[in-house]
C-alpha cells in the first residue's frame, strides 16, 4: 500500500484537474513539481502561508535590538564625547539599528527558507525527473485509501503525459 504514483503533465490545467480529483477520492498529494512558482498549484494542494515570515520577524527584531545594544554599549564603554553631544547620542543609533535590522532580518529569512526547503541537499530523490525544471509538471501521490491503479486512471483521465507506479 506504500506504492507511490508519479504523473508527468505538460499542461498546468491537467495537473490541477488531477490534483483535484485525486484529493476528492482520498488520495494524498505528496509533492507537486513545477518549473515555475504557481499560486494555482499552491491553492490546489491547500498550502498555507509560509512560516518563513516568522524567521524574518524575529531576525529583524534581533538585528534591531542587537544593533542598538552594540552602539549603546560602545558609547557607554568608551565615552568619546564630540562637540558636547550627549552620551549616548540618539541620532546615530537610528542608522546602526536600521542597518542591523535589515542585515539580520534578511539572513534569518535566508536561513529560514533553506531550512524549510530542506536545503542544502546533495542527493535528489530517485523519482526526480530533469524535465521538472524545464517544461513539465510532476505529481507524486500516495494512494492512501485508493488503489494505485485508480490513481493511475485518474491521472491518465486528467491528461497526464506519462504515469508510472514507483516501487515499494
Amino acid at each position: 500500500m506504500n506504492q507511490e504514483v508519479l504523473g508527468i503533465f505538460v499542461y498546468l490545467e491537467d495537473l490541477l484537474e488531477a490534483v483535484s480529483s485525486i484529493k476528492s477520492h482520498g488520495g494524498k498529494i505528496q509533492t507537486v513539481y513545477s518549473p515555475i512558482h504557481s499560486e494555482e498549484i499552491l491553492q490546489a494542494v491547500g498550502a498555507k502561508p509560509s512560516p518563513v515570515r516568522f524567521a524574518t520577524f524575529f531576525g529583524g527584531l534581533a538585528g534591531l535590538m542587537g544593533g542598538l545594544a552594540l552602539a549603546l554599549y560602545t558609547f557607554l564603554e568608551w565615552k568619546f564625547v564630540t562637540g558636547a553631544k550627549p552620551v549616548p547620542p540618539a541620532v546615530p543609533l537610528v542608522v546602526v539599528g536600521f542597518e542591523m535590522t535589515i542585515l539580520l532580518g534578511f539572513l534569518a529569512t535566508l536561513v529560514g527558507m533553506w531550512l524549510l526547503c530542506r536545503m542544502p541537499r546533495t542527493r535528489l530523490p530517485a523519482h526526480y525527473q530533469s524535465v521538472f525544471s524545464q517544461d513539465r509538471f510532476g505529481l507524486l501521490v500516495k494512494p492512501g485509501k485508493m488503489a494505485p491503479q485508480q490513481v493511475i486512471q485518474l491521472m491518465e483521465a486528467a491528461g497526464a503525459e506519462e504515469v508510472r507506479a514507483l516501487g515499494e
Partner: protein
Amino acid sequence: MSSKGNQTQGEALTYARVQDLVLGAMGKPGRLYWAAVGFCFLGLLYGASCWGYQILTGMGVAGINHPVNWGIYLVNFVFWVGIAHSGTLISAILYLLRARWRTSIARAAEAMTVFAVMIAGLFPFIHLGRVWIFYWIVPYPNQRDLWPNFQSPLVFDFLAISTYLTVSSMFWYSGMLPDLAAARDRSQGLRKKIYGLLSLGWQGTHEQWRHYGTAYLLFAAFATPLVISVHSVVSWDFALSIVPGWHSTIFAPYFVAGAIHSGLAMVLTLIIPLRRIFGFEGLITLHTLESIAKTIVFTGLIVGYSYGVEYFMAWYSGNIFEWDTFIWRAVGDYAPQFWIMVICNVLAPLLYLFRSIRRSLAWLLGIAVLVNIGMWYERFVIIVGSMAHEFVPYAWGLYRPSWVELSIMVGSFCMFFFLFLLFGKFLPTVSVSEMKESLGPPSRPIPHGGSS
C-alpha cells in the same frame, strides 16, 4: 513582459525555448570571449600591481595632498556604489511594483550590483594606505578598549556597504537557485556536479516554491529600504561635514537619484552588447530598453533639478563661501568637468524623449555611455571641487590624479568587466523561471474549428 516581445526570430517563446536560449548561452566559449577575458584580467592585474606599488612605496605616489585629501579613490567609491544601485532598484523595487519589463534584465542588473559593490568596497581600503589594519573599523572587543565611533558617517558607511554587499549577493544567489537547478539538469560531468552543489538540491517542489515565493518577496521588501539608505549614508560622508558644497540637506535624495541614474545607464551599457552577443533579442526586447531609457529621462530630470536647487540654496542662503564655491565650479579650474557633468547627465538623456532615438541601439548605447562619464565627473566635481576651494583663499589648491591613481581606476573597470564576462558565460544571465512565469502556463491547443 509585453506580448510584443515574446518572439524570437519569428519563433514563439515557450518554456523550453526560453531555457534553451538562456542556458544554451552558457555553452563552450569562443576565442573572442577568452581574448576579452584575458584582456580584462591583465588590466585587473595591472591595477592590483599598482596598488601593491602604492602599499610598498607609501601614499605619496597618489596625487592626494592638502587641501584635496579625497581624490579619485573616493570618486570611484561613490561612482561604483552608485552603479550598484540599479540592480536592486530593478530587482527589488520594480518587483514590488510589479513592473514586468524588469524580468528579462533583473539578473544581469543584480550581477552588476554585486560586482560594483565589491569594487566600491575596495576603494576605501585603497584610500586607507595601511590596508592591513582595516579591521580596526570592525566593532569587536580588543585589548586597546577602543571601539569604532558610531557617531561617524564613515562607520555608518562600513555598516551600510557591508550590509548591502551581503544582501545584494544573497538576493542574487537566491533568485538563481531554480535556474542553477535547471542548468544542473541539462549538464553532464563536472558541470553537473558544480551546478548541483550551487543549486543546493533545488527540485521545484510545491513546498520549496511556497517558502521561496514568500522569502523572495521579503528579500525584496528588505532590499528596497536598504538601497535607498546606502547612498543616503554615502552622501552623509559629505553632508555631515561643514565644507562648502557638501553641507546640504538635499544630498541624500540627490545622491540616490544620481545613483539610480548612473546605474540604469550602466545597465544599458552592459545589456545592449549582451543581448546581441547571446542572441537574446527575443528575451530582452526593445520595449525593455525603451523602458530603461524613459526611466533615465526621469532620473536625469531629478538630477538636473538637484543641480539647480544646489545653486538656488547657495544663492538664497547668503552664505558667501557656499556661493563662491558654486560660482567657481561653473567658471573655475574645474569648469570643463562641471559642464561635462551637466551636458552628459541632464541634457544628453533628454534625447531619449524622441522615440526614434529610444529605438536606435546605437543612440541608446551612446547616450548611456555619456551618462556614465557624466556621473563619474559629477562625483569628481562634488568631492574634488569642494575640497579644492574651501573657506580661506590661501588654503585653496588644485588636484590632479597621479598615474598610480588612474591605473588603479583602470584596473577597477577591468575587474568589473572581467567579473561580468565570467558571469555571462558561467551563470544564467536571464532569470529563466521568472521569464517562464511571465509567459503564463502552457495551455492545450484549441482544436481547429472546435468552437465555430
